[in-house]
């Protein structure tokens, strides 16, 4: 059983409470720096910030419905080699799961890292968050979500990826900060999920607490709603792309900017083959292609790119939705990739980010398996 404690909330201000908690984490002397989403001083923009001075945490805001990038990539940068310090990272569930995939690929390490996960209320798209933040505050958002009024505030609602996310609780974290099914006007739940998390909890000296029963049922009902909308979305997307022509229509706005690859936390190649000289075709090659069918769309290799990316990363896709967030032409990339990823992960009885002990499916094999794909009869 995980070690469970609580932190007091004053005047219903969750952000104040969390910032105080983050400061207390520094006081244990166990962390050198903390990666946490924070308002940048120059604008109402939230970005991950690496903080070493606990007095500079006043603008930390891990509850805003803002998700500008998947921080798994950043944690990988911070931990791919020993940094000489200990880092605490405040992450969303999908960031933790993506990081787990990167650790399996030896592109990050949890040795000198404490992951603090907060129950995830989801986020808006970048565009929606910009509009939201002009008028509203983070407190309005969490107030609405946690009082049961829903995630929609002044016309903005969760990004599609978040609205179908069946992992609102950051299970892979060392420490979980619980919001769901908790009387948040009064306190937040803190759980140590790993020996590392439990030991940090002990040094924080917080009052012990049990896990209220409502929490389990609140989480279960949220997951069941999300799973239902997820499956709906899978059906719709599969139906809308079930021929090559329909897939082409789905992706027809693609300009091969490869933003979806750049922001993808599990696109693990250091250099993507699609930006190498392999795809810097000879001018005469384009003419040959055009002559063969009479037409060739420029830039070329669009479907080729997306199908290859599916083959390379779909078994590691955690569904964070950053691909859609980064698409300049509003292609529903997340819908397509999550649908495919769901099927490929099922085929290998694998779930990205579920456990650090499961090897990525394409990195191993069994002698006796998949006999059905062999032979021509």
């Amino acid at each position, binding site marked *: 059983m995980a070690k469970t404690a609580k932190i007091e909330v004053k005047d219903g201000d969750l952000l104040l409470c969390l910032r105080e908690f983050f400061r207390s984490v520094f006081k244990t002397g166990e962390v050198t720096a903390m990666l946490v989403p924070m308002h940048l001083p120059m604008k109402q923009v939230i970005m991950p910030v690496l903080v070493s001075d606990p007095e500079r945490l006043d603008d930390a805001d891990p509850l805003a419905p803002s998700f500008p990038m998947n921080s798994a990539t950043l944690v990988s940068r911070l931990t791919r080699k020993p940094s000489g310090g200990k880092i605490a990272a405040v992450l969303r569930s999908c960031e933790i799961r993506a990081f787990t995939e990167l650790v399996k690929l030896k592109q990050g390490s949890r040795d000198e890292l404490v992951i603090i996960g907060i129950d995830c209320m989801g986020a808006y798209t970048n565009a929606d968050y910009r509009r939201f933040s002009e008028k509203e505050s983070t407190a309005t958002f969490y107030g609405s979500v946690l009082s049961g009024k829903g995630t929609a505030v002044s016309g903005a609602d969760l990004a599609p990826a978040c609205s179908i996310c069946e992992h609102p609780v950051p299970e892979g974290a060392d420490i979980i900060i619980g919001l769901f099914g908790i009387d948040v006007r009064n306190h937040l739940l803190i759980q140590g999920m790993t020996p590392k998390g439990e030991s940090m909890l002990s040094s924080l000296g917080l009052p012990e607490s049990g896990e209220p029963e409502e929490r389990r049922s609140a989480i279960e009902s949220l997951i069941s709603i999300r799973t239902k909308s997820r499956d709906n979305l899978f059906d719709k997307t599969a139906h809308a792309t079930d021929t*090559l022509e329909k897939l082409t229509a789905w992706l027809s706005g693609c300009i091969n900017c490869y933003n979806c690859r750049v922001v993808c936390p599990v696109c693990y190649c250091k250099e993507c083959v699609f930006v190498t000289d392999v795809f810097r075709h000879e001018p005469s090659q384009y003419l040959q292609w055009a002559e063969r069918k009479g037409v060739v769309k420029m830039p070329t290799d669009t479907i080729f790119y997306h199908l290859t990316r599916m*083959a390379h990363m779909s078994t590691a896709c955690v569904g964070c939705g950053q691909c859609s967030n980064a698409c300049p032409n509003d292609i529903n990339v997340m819908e397509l990739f999550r649908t495919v990823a769901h099927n490929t992960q099922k085929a290998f009885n694998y779930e990205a980010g579920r456990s650090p002990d499961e090897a990525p499916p394409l990195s191993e094999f069994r002698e006796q398996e998949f006999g059905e*794909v062999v032979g*021509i009869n």
Partner: protein
Amino acid sequence: MSEFEPTIIAFVCNWCTYTAADLAGTSRLNYPKNIRMIRLMCTGMVDPQYIIKAFLEGADGVLVSGCHPGDCHYINGNYKARRRIKLLKEILPQFGFDPKRLRLTWIGASDGIMFAEIMRDLSAQIKALGPSEAKLKMVI
């Protein structure tokens, strides 16, 4: 209109299936001209993108063929190929590719007769499926 002749790209490993093809040739066995063979050192080096490229360029069928399990010259390349084929057989049919267009076989170096038989069967099967969608339509 002339009869449809499918284009089949076969990625074959140097040590087993290519050697079997060689044996079929030196034994003067016939097999259809629809098969375009690409020799690789091992099926374990067939990146899924080679297969995707072949289909998008208009191949009506793709065959990957290597050594029998346990016989791989590089110990386990064929097992890795099998997982990649499994992966592609999950992905491609979602977009309307008939899974029968993508095949994996094990043909050992001494299986010249078997090689010719499989090529004949495969060619007939792909012919029966008709031309692939990618061949007929504009692919972006």
